Every structure is written in C-alpha cells, then in structure tokens.
C-alpha cells in the first residue's frame, strides 16, 4: 500500500495514496465544509463534481485554491483549511450562492433540514454583499414530487441519483451559465416524463428545490370530517426511521410510539401495511410456485424468473423502460394497494360503511406510493383504494403540529383485524426482505415440511446485486436481488438476453430498499443511518413470535371468510393487477 505524508493545519497526516484532502482532514478531526459533495458508501452513489467550491483549501505552492473533495493528497503537501484567504473565499462563494436563492427560508419545506441553511449558519453569513438578478424557472408539481428549481444550487446530486444510480435518465443539467439548472427534457413536468417517482432525487437534494407533495392537510381534513371513517396503514420501514425525526438514534424502533401517535392524531383505526405484506407473500409465493411447477412440468411458455412487484418505483421503471417484459413481474399488487382493496371491501363491510366513506391513509417511506395510489386501475368508480399516501417525514410533521412529545408517548398496539403481522412482513422494509419472506412461505408450501432455519443471511446485506441458491428440499431455487434501479437494469438486461439463471428476483427501487426510500428522514449522505435502520428491521423480525406469513391467523381468517384461496378468483379481482406499456412511440 502506497502512503503519503502531508501536513494539514500544521498537523502531520499519513494517508493512503489516492486519499483526498477532505478525507485526510477528517482523520485528524478537521471537518472541511462541503455542499455539493455526497457519497453513500456501499451504494454506487457518489456525487463529486467539484462545483460548489465551498470546500476550497489553500495548498502551498499552488496558484489558486484547491477543492478538498477532489484534490488528492501528495507527498509533502502543506494544506491550510482555514487561512484568511480560504475563509474569505468560502464565505464569498457562499454569499454568491445565497444571492441566487430565494429568501423564503422561514416557510420553506426544507427549513431546519436544509444543508444550505446550516452551512450559511456555520459560516456566519449575516449579509449578502453581492446581490443581483436571481434565476427563476417554471414550477412543477406532480402527484409525488414538487420541483421548485429557483432553489436549485446546481450541486447535481439529483442528476447523479437519477442517471448513475437509478439509470432512469429523466433529469439532466440544461442551459448554460447563470441559467443552468437540472430539469427533465424540455422542462416538462415530471408527470409527463418517464420519472418513476422513486424520490431518490428528493432524498439527496440539499435544499428545498426537490420536496414531496405534502398531503398531510388532506389527512387532517378527512380526520375532522365526521362522516368519514379514517383508517391508516404504516409501512414496515417507517417504524425504523421515524424516531430520527425526533432526535432519536438512527435504528431505534418506534412501532408502539408511532401507533400511539397515530391514535392521538385521530385516526379511527390504526392498521399495519405489514398485514398486507403477509397477504402479498401468500399471493406472490403462490404465483411463484405455480410458475415453477409449470416450468418443471416442461411448460416452455411460462415466464421465469418471476419478479417481485411490491415497489411502485420499480413498476414505473419497467413499464417505461422494459415494456416488452411486462408479463414477467408478479401480478400481485403492492402491499399498500392490497391493504386498500381489502380495507374498502372486507373491512368496510365489517364496519357496515360505504367504501367512499372509508378513507384509507398510508404512511410510507416512499414518494412513488403517492403516485401509485393515484393510478386509475386502483380506484373503483373514481374512489381510490388508498386515498392519501404520506411520507415518514410528513407524519413526523403532523406529530409535531399536534404538540405530541413523541419520545414520551406510551407504546401501543395496532388494531385488528388488519394490524396483525408476522416477522416476514416486517422485513419487507429492507432489500432482500421480500424474497426472504417469500422463501419462508414457499418452502413450506412446496415441501410441506417445516422450515428449520428462518434467517437467510445469504439473502441479506447491502451489495447492489446479490444472489443465492436456496435448497427447496432437493430442488435448488436460484434467487437474485437488486436494489437501486441501475442494478435492476443489469438483471433485466440479462433476462432480456436470455442469460438469467434465476427463478425469482426481488427488486426494490431505492438503495437499501424501503429503509432508504425517498420519503424517509434525510440521511444527508450518512450510510450508517441506512445500515442501522436495516438492523432494526431484522431485530423486529427476530422478536416476533410468528415469522412466516402463512402463519398469520388473521390472514388465514381472511382467506377462510372472504378470499377463498391464494390466487383464486376473488384474489385475482382484488389483489392482482396488470401493467402498461408506457414507452413513447415514434408516430409517423
């Protein structure tokens, strides 16, 4: 290993060759401020254009200042990170960036969580000497994401997320100079583009330029409406992250406090999307076994591998980018939509309410869910199965609005019947979880033997693409996993080329799966946060008495009383969907 020795702020530092000044400084506790730079280790997200110039430092013998994030350490280098020249330059650059930024911080959705704001505070900017014209752009509000590009600082993180990580390719830098900004082609609305609404652009945006569409007031309107029964479902990844919004350590499970908070907010029933996740496993697992047995029986027409379909960002992705493969994914709806379908039929019947008087709210780590619940096929006579979807962040805001002291709340339990779930459902929140849950059920259904080992470590982790072969009592089942749409693309290309050896593939659009969703508390580039959330999810699974979906007694009851059998007639009607070719055609 080659090493170099250098001096930073009069301290000797020894680092590996190739280390940047920024990284080297960190090793001696010097935090050079950054703005555009963001690296999410273990995923392929690295944004380092060297564009904001906030991290400049003085290097002896160099004519101009050096960007610490992009400059590699060399032997004998003498670096000063806080000389008068550096501080003046940094503050001046910051003033320039602020001079082209709206001053509506007090009412900005990102206030308090804005990296630009906290940097301005750190640098103690109190006036802006260089004022002038501000760049303004067309606003864009889709059902999921709001783009207010007047607040864009051209850090290019969203562009990196959209193109390099997700390979969706909706965003690009456009124009030149002062007018340059990141936008979809022709500055069209995201709604009209091939955006998957995965929300990874929002997750990495340092300012209020990209935010979710806030639906919390719609939720409150429903709650105060005496005619409506408002029920809420919460996705598995939410409980592993919500606490962060209240200063709790990342990875703290707050399931009980969350239920308690939801009840205090006035929801009539507090249910769990996990229940629907168990239901998803029943449907998707059955579908897998069905396709598998046909395949084993020599059916050449049957589509394998089967792809999971719980993730709406992923569904949007293949509808736009791989329309020729829309018959490969499972037809099972996502847990959010299965929940909505059951809530507005089975449960509404129990309540003796008309479906339009039942309002289903979902709390999701996800922005694509906002889009998903607005899809036409998920509504009956214009009444959507899920009326409103809010993100983890929006729920936190509602809790704050209601003056609830979150940390002090007592732990509470979900309501029944749609609140009971197994450990298999909990792990839906992380990459690898859906397929592990499916394996647990499919194994027992297929082999008719009890599964001895429930923890499939080989399916877990943070690698972008993972694979494992699970022995179904003599039948080897090849499983693939991808998280991040760029990784998904690779597996899809393989299938297209006929090179895929997998029987089943799990895909989640967001890096890390739902724990890293676009609606989660901002991680600000700290990968440890995602890892802790993941750990919390597996802990919750471990703590559950029931860890296989088919053992959920309320699921069994649902089939017995209402649905019949998995993939049966009623299931197909309520729990399965179909996909659309959304690729643009050249019309002559």
């Amino acid at each position, binding site marked *: 290993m080659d090493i170099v020795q250098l001096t930073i702020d009069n301290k000797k530092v020894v680092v590996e060759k190739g280390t940047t000044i920024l990284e080297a400084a960190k090793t001696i506790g010097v935090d050079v401020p950054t703005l555009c730079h963001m690296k999410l280790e273990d995923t392929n997200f690295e944004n380092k254009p060297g564009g904001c110039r906030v991290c400049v430092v003085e290097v002896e013998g160099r004519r101009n200042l050096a960007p610490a994030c992009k400059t590699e350490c060399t032997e004998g280098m003498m670096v000063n990170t806080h000389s008068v020249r550096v501080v003046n330059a940094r503050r001046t650059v910051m003033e320039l960036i602020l001079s082209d930024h709206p001053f509506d911080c007090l009412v900005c959705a990102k206030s308090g969580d804005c990296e630009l704001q906290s940097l301005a505070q750190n640098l103690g900017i109190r006036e802006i000497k260089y004022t002038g014209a501000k760049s303004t752009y067309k606003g864009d509000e889709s059902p999921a994401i709001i783009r207010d590009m007047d607040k864009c600082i051209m850090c290019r993180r969203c562009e990196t997320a959209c*193109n390099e990580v997700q390979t969706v*390719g*909706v*965003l*690009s*830098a*456009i*124009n*030149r100079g002062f007018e340059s900004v990141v*936008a*979809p*082609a*022709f500055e*069209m609305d995201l709604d*009209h*583009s091939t955006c998957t609404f995965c929300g990874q652009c929002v997750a990495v945006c340092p300012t209020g330029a990209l935010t979710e569409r806030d639906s919390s007031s719609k939720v409150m309107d429903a709650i105060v409406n005496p005619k409506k029964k408002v029920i809420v479902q919460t996705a598995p990844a939410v409980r592993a992250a919500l606490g962060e919004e209240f200063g709790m350590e990342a990875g703290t499970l707050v399931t009980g406090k969350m239920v308690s908070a939801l009840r205090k907010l006035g929801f009539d029933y507090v249910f769990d999307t996990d229940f629907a996740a168990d239901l998803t496993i029943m449907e998707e697992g059955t579908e897998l076994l069905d396709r598998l047995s046909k395949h084993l029986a020599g059916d050449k027409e049957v589509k394998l591998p089967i792809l999971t379909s719980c993730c709406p960002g992923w569904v949007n992705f293949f509808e736009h980018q791989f329309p020729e493969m829309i018959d490969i994914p499972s037809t099972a709806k996502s847990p959010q939509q299965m929940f909505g379908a059951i809530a507005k039929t089975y449960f509404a019947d129990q309540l003796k309410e008309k479906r339009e008087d039942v309002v289903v709210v979902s709390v999701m780590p996800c922005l694509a869910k906002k889009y998903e619940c607005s899809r036409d096929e998920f509504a009956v006579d214009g009444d959507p199965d899920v009326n409103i979807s809010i993100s983890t962040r929006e729920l936190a805001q509602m809790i704050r609005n209601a003056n609830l002291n979150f940390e002090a709340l007592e732990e509470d339990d979900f309501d029944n019947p749609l609140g009971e779930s197994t450990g298999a459902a909990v792990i839906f929140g992380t990459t690898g979880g859906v397929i592990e849950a499916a394996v647990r059920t499919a194994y027992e259904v297929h082999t008719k033997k009890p599964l001895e080992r429930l923890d499939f470590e080989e399916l877990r982790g943070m690698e972008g693409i993972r694979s494992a072969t699970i022995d179904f009592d003599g039948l080897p089942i090849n499983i693939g996993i991808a998280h991040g749409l760029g990784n998904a693309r690779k597996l899809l290309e393989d299938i297209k080329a006929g090179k895929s050896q997998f029987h089943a593939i799990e895909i989640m659009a967001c890096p890390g799966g739902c724990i890293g969703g676009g609606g989660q508390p901002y991680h600000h580039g700290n990968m440890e946060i995602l890892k802790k959330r993941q750990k919390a999810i597996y802990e919750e699974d471990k703590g559950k008495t029931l860890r296989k979906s088919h053992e959920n007694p309320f699921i069994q009851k649902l089939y017995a009383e209402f649905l019949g059998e998995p993939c049966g007639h009623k299931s197909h009607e309520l729990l399965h969907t179909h996909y659309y070719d959304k690729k*643009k*055609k*050249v*019309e*002559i």
Partner: protein
Amino acid sequence: MANIKLPAAKVDELKEVCKKFDNDGGELINVLHAAQEMFGYLPAEVQELVANELNVSVAHVYGVVTFYSFFSMIPKGKHPISICMGTACYVRGAEKVLDEFKKHLDVKVGETTDDGKFSISCLRCVGACGLAPVVTVGERVYGRVAPEDVKGIIEEYL
C-alpha cells in the same frame, strides 16, 4: 406524453444519419448538427427521435442542445441576420448596428419576426475583423456596416 409526429421520409432520413454514426451516443453532437441541417432547427420531436436512436435519455439530448449556442429549438427566419459581436466589431460599433436591427424588425436577439422572414442572432467573431463591424444575412457578408445602412440591408430582402 404525446407521441412523436414527424414526416415519415424525414424520420427515415434521420434514422439513417444516426446509423451512419453507428447509433453511438458519443456521436450525439455530430448527429445534432446533421439534424439541424436537415430541419433548420431542433424541435422536441427530433430530439426524442435522436435520443431513441442513440439510446440516450431525451433529457441528456435536451441538456446538450441547450448547452451549445449553435443549436436552436426555434426555427430561424427565411433570412437569418447575424451580427458579429466579437471584440473587433464591438469596438467599431457593432452594438449600435444590432440595436438598429432590433428596432427595425421589432424582435430580440434569438427571435424570429412574426412573418418568419427575419431572425436576429449574435455571432462571436466570424474572423473578418478587417471588415468590422460585420453583419451576415444568410450566406451574404456585409462589412463596415454603419447603423444608417441597416434599413437598406433589410429592404434588400423585403
């Protein structure tokens, strides 16, 4: 999103151009040059088609089109007027000449008159500094243009 509407012959021609460049995304700028030559400008439909053929995102194509001043999404006038704003022309009064054109045609730089006859653009040095200030109308070059000459130049094309 509306589907793309272009005349069939043009579509084939453009596809042929892309093919000539091996449908290689790295050749995007060359392809755009050819497309602009073909259509006179680069409407959204053309960019969509190019993106499709070269297997790059439309956003990327649009990002490139809007980066380079040579590419335009607005059709040029029948007689495109370009005023050289290179330094040599500037110090010899190009700005006044430009103002005169703007005044007479009532359009801004980068715009086309309502009747589609004239469009005004600025150039950065055509390399005819000896003739400064220089104006070109289509292929024709006018040297040592004074603001008083502007009216006459426009009238030549009416």
